[in-house]
Every structure is written in structure tokens, then in C-alpha cells.
């Protein structure tokens, strides 16, 4: 049996990760799950970027002193991916920080419920009646008054 084609496998892996992440972002309702899905999609994009610089039978772009006869892979995409990975974790930490505050204020991390609540609040602040659908949130329970900090009222 012939060994499968390495590049095809890896492309499938990269695109698969991006697709799984995209689906996760489309169907998930829990915000933390959305953050995880984003991380998965990002990982897939990074894999594709490294693949873009890969060459058959090439070695890592580091000079070791020994005379190298084999070619080296393209170093540029690797540098780009280094940057992209660190950017990704920064954004992720920021998202988690925001989630903590959102959970404290609203007591939920369900994205649809939050959307309704934000809509209601904006309407409430503007002094207009919230839209029809927002009047009957899940369960029909009235929401507690969201907590805002002092900076808001200033």
C-alpha cells in the first residue's frame, strides 16, 4: 500500500481545523466555546501558513556548522506564524477578561440571550420600548437589573 501524500494530509488538517473552528463559531452559543472555536480556526490558519513555506525534503532554516547538502525550508512563513501565534494568545486573553466582566454583569454567557439583553438595555437607556422579541426572553422571567459601574453614569 502506497503511503498517503504528506502534503494532502496536512492541507486537509489545516483546512479541517479552519472549517471546524468556523462551524463552532456558527453554531455555539456559549461565549467561551466561541473563544475556543476561534483558537481552533486560528491554529488551522497557522498550519496552512507554515505549509505555504514547506519544501520537499528540506531541513529547518538553522545553520548548524556542518555543511548542509539538503535545501532549507522558507523561513519567512515561520516568522509570520510566530507572530500570529503570539497575537492569537493576546487576543484570547483579552476575550477571557471581557467574558469575566460580562458574566459578572449579566450572569450568563449565552450569546443570543446577551444580544437580547444588550438590545433591551440600549433601548432602555434611550427611553424607547424594546423590540417585540426582546420582551419575552427565554423562560419569561424578568431579568435582574444589570449592574453598571460608576464610570457609565458620569
Amino acid at each position, binding site marked *: 500500500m502506497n503511503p498517503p501524500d504528506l502534503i494532502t494530509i496536512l492541507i486537509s488538517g489545516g483546512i479541517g481545523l479552519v472549517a471546524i473552528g468556523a462551524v463552532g463559531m456558527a453554531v455555539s452559543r456559549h461565549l467561551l466555546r466561541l473563544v475556543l472555536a*476561534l483558537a481552533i480556526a486560528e491554529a488551522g490558519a497557522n498550519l496552512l501558513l507554515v505549509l505555504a513555506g514547506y519544501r520537499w525534503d528540506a531541513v529547518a532554516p538553522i545553520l548548524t556548522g556542518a555543511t548542509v547538502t539538503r535545501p532549507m525550508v522558507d523561513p519567512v512563513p515561520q516568522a509570520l506564524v510566530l507572530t*500570529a501565534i503570539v497575537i492569537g494568545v493576546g*487576543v484570547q486573553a483579552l476575550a477571557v477578561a471581557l467574558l469575566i466582566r460580562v458574566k459578572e*454583569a449579566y450572569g450568563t454567557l449565552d450569546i443570543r440571550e446577551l444580544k437580547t439583553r444588550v438590545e433591551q438595555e440600549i433601548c432602555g437607556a434611550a*427611553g424607547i420600548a424594546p423590540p417585540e422579541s426582546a420582551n419575552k426572553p427565554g423562560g419569561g422571567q424578568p431579568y435582574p437589573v444589570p449592574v453598571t459601574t460608576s464610570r457609565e453614569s458620569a
Partner: protein
Amino acid sequence: MNALALPVVLPLLAAFLVRPAGLASGSLARWFGPLVLLLCAGMLVDTALLTHGQPVSANIGGFAPPLGIVFYADSLALLFAIAVPAFALLLWPREAMQAGGDRISALMLLLVGSGTGMALSGDLFNLYVFYELLAVASFGLVASSGSARAWAATVRYLLISGFGSVLALVGVALIYAQTGTLNLAQLSEFAPERLANPLGLAAFACLLIGFGVKAELFPVNAWVPEVYATAPKRVSALLAGVVSKLAILVVLRLILLVFDLPEARQSLLVLGLIGLVSGELAAWRARDLPRMLAFSSIGQLGLLFMAVSIPGVLGLIAALAVALHHLLMKPALFLLAERWSGGLENLAGAGRKAPLAAGLFTLFALSLLGVPPLPGFWAKLVLLLGLGQQDAVLAQAAIFGVLLMAVVEAHYLFRLVGLLYAKTAHGAPPHRMGDLAVASLLGAILVASMPLLPALAQGLGWMAHQASDVAAYRAVTLGSTIPGVAP
């Protein structure tokens, strides 16, 4: 022109230093940011004067492009680069001047540094990095209003923006795999043979969606109404006015240099038209001023995408005219909305209490609509002329869409202006002097541009010719290989 890096780097340096400065002295931290911005704006104006608007480039790190990253400044790039610190100064958030505002100052400085970088950079991945920095800084500024709903809105903004970034990264990977370079000038050389294929178009679509998030492009603009309604109004003004234009500048460069394909232009036209129609209809239905402005901003930027889709110099002129008009208009409108953020019904009679604000609002509304002597009319006229030049069915439909949406726009804007001057007692607090002053300044520029229109049109034409000159772009970026030598 190695000094070209300074207006990008100095705000970043200042951002790093503003918090330690705040530990030492509060007032030092407060005035630090605006002073650095003033310096950067001065340096950019100085560059523009020195070069007489002729394109120059700077090799960052002293490596000849395409190996290193290159900054490219033609008159178009300089115009937008100057707009970034200038508008950041005009719209400097009030929170940054209060105690503990050093974090917000730092974020504003990062926003300016990255925005200037986006206007100047000539490298695809470098643009992506600056775009991400711009995004993270804008998340912080939106969240800085400190309300729970702003945090919730920021989370959604962050997720949509993050998804766009992933797509942009995939686009970069697709391009790199086919060309082996990231330099825009070199990409423009390789594009006709290596990127004019389905994969190239897929890469363009990925980049378009990625950079389109900030430009409020149709499928990725769901964050807009929430963010603009919950962010501090000066931040909304900055995002709608300046940041969106920088994202569009990137799309414009991509389509001019790399993806000069009819399919790419068509997709821009379609997405722009959908954005225009959906934005204006939503604005018509909106019941409070901030969200009405947010939706109308989506519509206006849809108009701008349609202008970008027009090929040739006429399209560029149209895009520049619409972009500059919107750049003046939206920040001023958001500043006026600061005190008028309640429901539209509550605004009845507000104009009698605040005649200056209402007068300015009426002026901007008229120009937004495109009532003849005002600059907005000429911007829309050039756009329609450009669309009429093409004989595709799509362009005809687009013209029809633009005219129809102008009617919708007229309806909701006149309804609002009528409300402002209704004979009802009104209790809203007066506008802050600072907000009114900035809005008046922008209004004055708008009015002053009317007698200057012929000169302005000539200037825009010259700028458009320069920006569409791909050969010059290549010659300047790839040609000036000796570091330290000003052309």
C-alpha cells in the same frame, strides 16, 4: 526617507511609556499623548511638503525590498496618514484626560501608530499586524466606557474581528504559497500570471472579509450597531470616521496593485450594494440616533465599496470623494449624538434649545443626502457617473439602488430634522463646548470646501492618477534600494 518610520514608531514608544509617566506625574501622562500626536502630524505634514506629494519609500531595517518591509508614501497614503493623528487629536477621549486615564491614552496612541502604519505599509503581512493592533486598541477603547453592555458588545466585536483575522491569515497563506512574496509591489508583478485564477480570487475573498470587518462590509458588520451605541461617542466617531477608511485604503491598494480582476470588482460592487440597501433600510427603521447613525454608516460605506469597485481613475476619484466626505461627516454627527442619544421622539424640539447643534446637524444631513451645492452632491455625482460608464446590468442595478436609497435616506433624515425643529419643549442637556467646537470645525471645513471645489477636484484627480500608477509604485518601492538616501 528613513524618517518615514517615525510617525508610526513614536506613538508606539509613547504608548509604552505613558503608564510609567503616569506613575511619576498625572498631568505629564495627560498631555504626553496629545503632544506626541501633534509631533507625528507635524512630521507627516513636513514629509508631504518636502516631497511635494511625490511618492517616496523607506526600507525598514535597511533591507532592500522585497526582503525587508517597505513603507510607501504617495499623496494618498500621506493624506490618510495625516488624518489619523489629526482626527485622534480632535476626538481625543475625555476619559483619557481624567485621573487613571493613562491606559486609555496608551490605547489611543497605539491606535494612531497602527493606523498610520496601515496607511503607509507596503507589505501584506505587516498590514495584517497593524490591522490586528488597530483592532485590539479599538476593543479597549469601546470597552473603556465601562458599561456592561459595552463589554458585551466588545465581545461580539472581538469574535467577529477574530474570525476575519483568521480568514485574512488564510488569504496571506494562499498568496504566499503561489507567489513566495508579501511585498505589494512584487505581488503586483506576479499577480497577472500567478494570482489571476480561482485560488487567487479565493485569497482576495478571504482578505476582503478579513479587512472588511473594520470597514463594515456586509457579511461581517453585525457588530456595528451595538458597538456604536455603547462605545463612548468620540470612539464611535473615530471608528466610523477614520478606522473604516484605513481598512478601505488597504482594500483599495489590494485591488489596484494585486487583484485588478473584474470578478474582484464585481464582488465588491455586490457586497457594497447589499451593505447600502440593508444599512439604509435599517437606519430608516432605527428609533434612536446613535443606531440610526451606525446603520447609515454601514450604508455610506457600502456606497464607498461600490465606488472602489469602479475601474479606472474615475472610480478612484469617486472613492476618494466619498471617503473624504464621510471622513468629515460621520465624526461630527456622532459628536452631536452625544447629547441626543435618546429615542428619536425624545428629540422633538431639541433644535430650538440648541440652535447651533441643530443647524450643524441639518447641514450634515443635507450634505449626506447630496443636496446640490454641498460637497456630498458632487461625491455622489462622480460615483453615479462612474457606475454609468459601465454597461453591465449590475452597474445599472447599482445606480437604481443608489437613487432609491437616497430617497429612503431623505425620508428619515428630513423626519429627524423636522422633529428637531418641532414646537415642543425639550429638556436635554446642552452639548459640551468641546464637542460643538469640533463639530463646527468639521462643518466649517465642509462649507469652505464648496468654493474650492474646482481646485479640490483637480487635486483629487491628480491624487487618483498617482495612486493608480502601478509602475511608479514598483519603481519607488523596489527601486530605492540604498538606505539613508532620500530621493
